[in-house]
């Protein structure tokens, strides 16, 4: 835990960061790299946001609800009121947080498998309503033609975020770094210790002066807000959303898988899962085996989890402890 500027940890992290910052200068217009890495950061961010709440010990299987509400909130606001995507994405996050507030009220006393199941079921509520409210949400037709991110002016330079893949890459990199920082606080700070105490033994934590309900609620709200934000970003990046796309089980389950794969107690764990699995699948497996890529994907998950029950990050950590 020595945080000096020269520790190898900081060096490694900085090296990786520098790589991601400067690799575009080497690659110029490698569209595949930008597309894949943008989505990698995106899923990394989603996994980090999900893990914030998972750190309290309650596993959610319903984050697609926040994601979908964020996407729809953002897309509809931009469709009807023509606000800048920057504003609507924030609004999307808030819509997610409002639903998170409902969760804390309704599911506040649920734990474990019952909590997981209640969250899983709660995805259906906004999904079916949006699917049937055709006059406002376009129902099953989905929202199409969502405006992309508007250009940002920095001094005299204008960055076209809507068109430039490179700009989107940096945008998602920044988002992910911010969420990574929040995630780090959740593990390392005093708040993080409270969260950890909750996870290990709730009654004991409350004896020690942790406000159980407050800590859980705030964590969930933050997690929901960030997931909603991701949903909004997704809507504006893709330009179209449909209920089955944004309220899918895939969106709820993938963060869990990425996090478990990377290591759920590690600062970079969820991100690590995304950084390994997503590019590997999209660039390598898909082109190697157009039909069987999921078999490789599944096998990697099985084998990794059999050998590293705490995620692949724990392997690195363990190797370090022993050496």
């Amino acid at each position, binding site marked *: 835990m020595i945080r000096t500027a020269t520790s190898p940890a900081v*060096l490694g992290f900085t090296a990786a960061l520098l790589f991601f910052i400067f690799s575009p200068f080497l690659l110029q217009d490698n569209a595949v790299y930008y597309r894949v890495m943008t989505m990698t950061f995106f899923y990394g961010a989603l996994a980090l946001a999900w893990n914030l709440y998972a750190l309290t010990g309650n596993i959610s299987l319903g984050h697609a609800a926040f994601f979908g509400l964020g996407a729809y909130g953002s897309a509809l606001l931009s469709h009807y009121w023509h606000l800048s995507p920057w504003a609507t994405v924030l609004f999307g996050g808030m819509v997610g947080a409002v639903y998170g507030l409902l969760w804390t009220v309704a599911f506040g006393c649920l734990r474990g498998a019952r909590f997981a199941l209640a969250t899983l079921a709660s995805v259906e509520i906004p999904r079916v309503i949006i699917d049937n409210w055709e006059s406002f949400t376009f129902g099953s037709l989905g929202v199409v033609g969502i405006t992309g991110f508007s250009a940002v002016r920095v001094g005299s330079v204008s960055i076209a975020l809507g068109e430039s893949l490179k700009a989107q890459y940096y945008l998602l990199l920044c988002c992910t770094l911010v969420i990574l920082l929040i995630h780090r606080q959740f593990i390392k700070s005093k708040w993080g210790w409270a969260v950890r105490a909750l996870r290990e033994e709730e009654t004991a934590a409350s004896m020690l002066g942790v406000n159980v309900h407050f800590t859980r609620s705030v964590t969930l709200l933050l997690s929901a807000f960030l997931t909603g934000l991701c949903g909004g970003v997704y809507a504006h990046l893709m330009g179209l959303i449909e209920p089955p796309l944004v309220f899918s089980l895939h969106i709820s389950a993938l963060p869990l898988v990425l996090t478990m794969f990377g290591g759920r107690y590690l600062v970079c764990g969820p991100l690590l899962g995304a950084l390994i699995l997503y590019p590997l699948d999209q660039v390598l497996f898909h082109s190697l085996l157009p039909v069987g890529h999921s078999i490789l994907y599944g096998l990697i998950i099985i084998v990794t989890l059999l050998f590293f029950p705490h995620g692949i990050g724990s392997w690195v950590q363990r190797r370090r402890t022993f050496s």
Partner: protein
Amino acid sequence: MNIFSNIFKPIVSLVVSLTVSVCSAGAALGNSSPIRVGEIDPLTGKLAKHGQEIHEGILYAIEQANSTGGAAGRKFELLSRDDQSQPEVAINQAEDLIYREQVAGLVGGYVDSLVGPISELAAKHQVPYVASASLQQGLTLGRHNPYFFRVAHLQGVVEPLCSFLIQELKPDRVAVLYASTPGSTEFGQQVRSCLLDAAIEIPIFEKFRPGSPDFSAFLLKIRRSRVDVLISGGFFADHLILVRQMKEQKIPLRAYIGPWGIAYPSFLEAMGEAAHGLFGMCAWNPGIAVAGADKQSRAFVEGFTARFGKTPNTTTMHGYTSAKALIEAIRRVLESGKELTGDNICRALRSLDLLLPMEHLQFDLKGDPKHYQQVVVQVQKGEMVTVYPADRKTGEIAQPSSE
């Protein structure tokens, strides 16, 4: 914090190796090198059945072109990718095909929500994209995309269906059930408006999620409201359950019409006797082809069955038709001695005039097919009989078994 360095070392090396592999491809496209054609379809997951069918149609078209010498001495090479029914995967894979594999054109695509993003990508990179089974109208409305073509559209389904209902069946009360997908929803809305124009009552107009395991309560409602025709905009699998439960519950209906999923040889095989009397729609099927293309159609069925060991169907034919259009356009560009660029291929596509088993293929200015029209078929004793339109009729409507 110490973990960072060790965690990031493997990532950095992984990313570097991926980057290298991303960069190393491409280039080196000489004159004798194969012409690469990219295909994006849902090869796995829920839509795998139709994705695979389209894939086989495309593959057959490519192999056929190669066996007749390719284009100007160059062979075609098909690169297939799976879109997993997710737009971001479709985009990644399309981008990979265009950027890394340097394909000359793209074909395939089964779901509108995935065809849309790919078509935009195609426009951005100026690569032609001929979609195989896209229906939605919104795709060719609004912003003009000169690189996007498709061999099917929704009017080709809705128009013949509506005139069939109004002119032939003349029902009093119709129930419309549609799936909660964009294509099926649009279909449901259009059918409703044309039936209401003809003063036909629609007491039941409902949507359902594809994959529902049970329709018995819905069928009870059908019985209670005494509709005589049920139009079901579900898909292959939904008809399997719906038709079986309908037969089991002895729901009295004059006609059951399923525009998608009924007119498939495999559907008739799976349902057996229970399929008798059902109405379906298709653009093509073995034995059902546009005028003048009968011989070509028969040759296709024979060749395809010999190659894949199964009967082709209308979805296969959509894949075949789209690939055929692209192949023909590429051939024309090369034979006229022009350079194989996206713009040249698109120009060739726009001037294309091909008689194919499924349709007389010509594209209009928006990239829509000019002559795409499906026919209404009825299942009679395990065979598909064309009953509408009149000029393609091969038999009369058999009244459903009145047992």
